[in-house]
Structures are given as structure tokens and as C-alpha cells.
């Protein structure tokens, strides 16, 4: 076994792992409801206008989330829970509480992660992938996520209570990890109610957002790296 090869490979793996987290992060701010009868969206431009209006008026979001990782072939599900905070301009706190603790904060051009053993700080500007992600996230919140047709093709649906947008990555390499991203928006307030990341194969991750509170006063300390 060549040790050096392994080190090089694992360095690569580290970078990839970071990128994967980013891909997952891209979709944090968006968010799914029980299966409802879907039909193609009747008025896409109306939806986009409503979304833009909503994002402009949203100063902050606080909510709980439940993440369900479905391993379809093994008939197993891994459930984790946590809390999410967003505050304008671009502060995000994504925190897993059960059954593991894992924290991600994006603020002031930096990305911070922490678990029980380690914490890490990345400079978003130093990494093209981070920059892309940051652009994507703020794009989501500002409502122009759906204008990014360079990286994703989008399909629009609606049910009685939700809008659904399916994003399909254009890049082949990205699609090997992430086939589709489904984003559910609540028809009443246009907040994201769910998110589904479908992997190649049948496995997927579903995140449901509940107890959403808009425009409450979230102390900036929530986004400090500690």
C-alpha cells in the first residue's frame, strides 16, 4: 500500500467532502410536504413575482427542521432534527441537535462548522465553490435562485397548498451525486416548507421545515463563530 497515494487521495477526499457539504448547503435556505396531487404550475411568472416580493420583505427566518435520510434498498431511515436561522443580509445558522450535534454558520464571508470534537473556519472568498454557494444561498433568499438557469434546469408544479420547483443540475458530475433538488414553497406565505435531494440511485434526503417565524428579532450573536 502506498502511503503517499493515500494521503493525496484523502486530501482530495477532504476537498470533495467539503464541496459535498456545500452542495447540501446550497439548498438549506429552500426547503416538503406530504405527497399531494401535483399539476404543472399554471402561472410561473406570478409565482416568481410573489417569491420576489416575499424575499424582499423577509428580514429574518427562524424555524425547526427534521431531516430524513431514506436508504431505500436497505429500508432504513436516519432521522435528525435541528434549528435554522437566517438574518439579512447574509447570515445563516444551520444546527443539528439530535441525535448528533453539528453546527454550520455562514456570516461575514466565512463559513464555520463545529461538531463535538472539531471546529473549522473557511474563507468563502478563497474558494470558488464557496463563492458559488454563497451566491446561490443569497439568491434563494433574495428570490432569484430560480433565475440561475446556467447551472440548473427547472420544472414548476403546484398542488392545493404548495408550489414545487424541481431543479436538475446541468453538470454531469454534479448529477452523479445529486440527480434532482425539489423545493416546496407554502402557497400562503411563499416560505420554503420542504426540500428533497434525490441522489443517483433511489436514496434521498428530505428536510421539512416547521414552526417558521418570519421577521422576529434574531440576535446577531446567533451567527458568531463559537
Amino acid at each position: 500500500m502506498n502511503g503517499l497515494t493515500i494521503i493525496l487521495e484523502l486530501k482530495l477526499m477532504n476537498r470533495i467532502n467539503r464541496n459535498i457539504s456545500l452542495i447540501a448547503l446550497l439548498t438549506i435556505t429552500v426547503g416538503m410536504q406530504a405527497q399531494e396531487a401535483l399539476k404543472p404550475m399554471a402561472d410561473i411568472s406570478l409565482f416568481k413575482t410573489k417569491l420576489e416580493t416575499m424575499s424582499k420583505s423577509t428580514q429574518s427566518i427562524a424555524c425547526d427542521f427534521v431531516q430524513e435520510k431514506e436508504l431505500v434498498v436497505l429500508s432504513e431511515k436516519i432521522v435528525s432534527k435541528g434549528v435554522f436561522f437566517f438574518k439579512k443580509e447574509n447570515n445563516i445558522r444551520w444546527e443539528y441537535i439530535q441525535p448528533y450535534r453539528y453546527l454550520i454558520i455562514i456570516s461575514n464571508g466565512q463559513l464555520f462548522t463545529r461538531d463535538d470534537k472539531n471546529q473549522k473556519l473557511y474563507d468563502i472568498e478563497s474558494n470558488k465553490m464557496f463563492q458559488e454557494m454563497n451566491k446561490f444561498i443569497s439568491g434563494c433568499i433574495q428570490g432569484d435562485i430560480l433565475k440561475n438557469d446556467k447551472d440548473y434546469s427547472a420544472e414548476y408544479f403546484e398542488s392545493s397548498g404548495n408550489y414545487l420547483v424541481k431543479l436538475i443540475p446541468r453538470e454531469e458530475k454534479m448529477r452523479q451525486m445529486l440527480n434532482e433538488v425539489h423545493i416546496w414553497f407554502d402557497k400562503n406565505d411563499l416560505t420554503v416548507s420542504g426540500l428533497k435531494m434525490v441522489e443517483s440511485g433511489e436514496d434521498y434526503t428530505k428536510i421539512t421545515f416547521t414552526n417558521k417565524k418570519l421577521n422576529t428579532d434574531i440576535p446577531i450573536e446567533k451567527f458568531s463563530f463559537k
Partner: protein
Amino acid sequence: MSLFNNFQPSELTLPGDKDSYSWFRQDAGRYLFQSTIDIYKNNFTGLLFVKPVGDSYRVLFITEMGIKIFDMEFFGDSDFKVHYCIEDLNRKAVINTLGNDLSLMLFNIAGKGKIKMMREKKEGKLIIKSKDRFGTRYCTMNEHINKVEELIKTGTFSNKVNIKFSGLAEPDSIIITHYNLKLKIQLTRLHELAAKIPE
């Protein structure tokens, strides 16, 4: 073997099936660990999921946010199959090292060949020595619970590996280290009951 020059051969024979010493029971539902991998100055984290399926084990590594990194299946006799691996990680050296480490973690005592029992002179601990085509394994036993508390594997063509297990009846913590490679895998068991039922 210089690591174990302090032992004397034991007359004991292996009581029961060799697989009964494994921390991963075939009849268990599943095991979930929070995982940290350190390689030189790099560190990355995720969840390691272990599920017994018949006589084999399915092991998946997933990021905290749910993205699957790899999915492998482990059979006895150091055999494993890669069901899925993200493209950039799918390199022989990495897969072999991870696969061999995880196989050792699941199947502690080698399947074929002679098994020798010995006692360490200093503390009188029972050591089970076994061999397969990849090398020799020395398992130091915790006789109170009949589980392996430390496993050392040596081999001509492979890295020397040490695995430390702790827990009462279930594996609470597992640490895998390499002697000539700065690679360390730390697993801490997650207790899922509280999160299993979404409100």
C-alpha cells in the same frame, strides 16, 4: 512479534463461534456512529451506518447533511464489495484502506487458518492470534464480556493497524489508527431513540 514478546501459549481453545466475539451482532437492527477521519492535517466528519444483512454487513458513510459518500458490503474472509462511491473518492488505494479497516472492525478474528490462544504475562489478558492471506491479527480480549478490546493487525504488504473498542455490550466507541500512516478514524455511537419519532 516484538509487540507480544511477553506472552505464553495458552492451552485454551476458542469457546464458541469466532464471530460471537464481534461487537456487531448479526441479529441487531443497525448501528449509527458520528465519525471523524483525520489524515495528516485534514479532518472530515460524517455518519457511519452499519446494518447486518444476512451473514454480511452493509456500511454507509453519509455527511451530516445526508449526502452519501460510500456504500460498501462486507463478507467474512476480508472480502468486500463497493455498491457506491462518489466518483472522486473512488480510487483503489483509498477504497482498499477503508475497506480493510472496516472489515477488521466488523470481523475481528480471521476466518480461516489456525487460531492460537495465549496469555499476556503482565496482566494475564487473553490474546487470540489468527491469520489470513492479508496478515496476522492479535485480539486482546475483555473476558468479562467476551469481546475484543484491542485488535492489532500486521502484514507484509499492508499497513499495521490498531483498533480499540470500548463499550459494555454494545460498541460505544471505536478508534482505528495506523502505525505508518497518519490516518485515524474515530467512531462514537449515536443513540437515536429521541430522534426516531418526528413530532
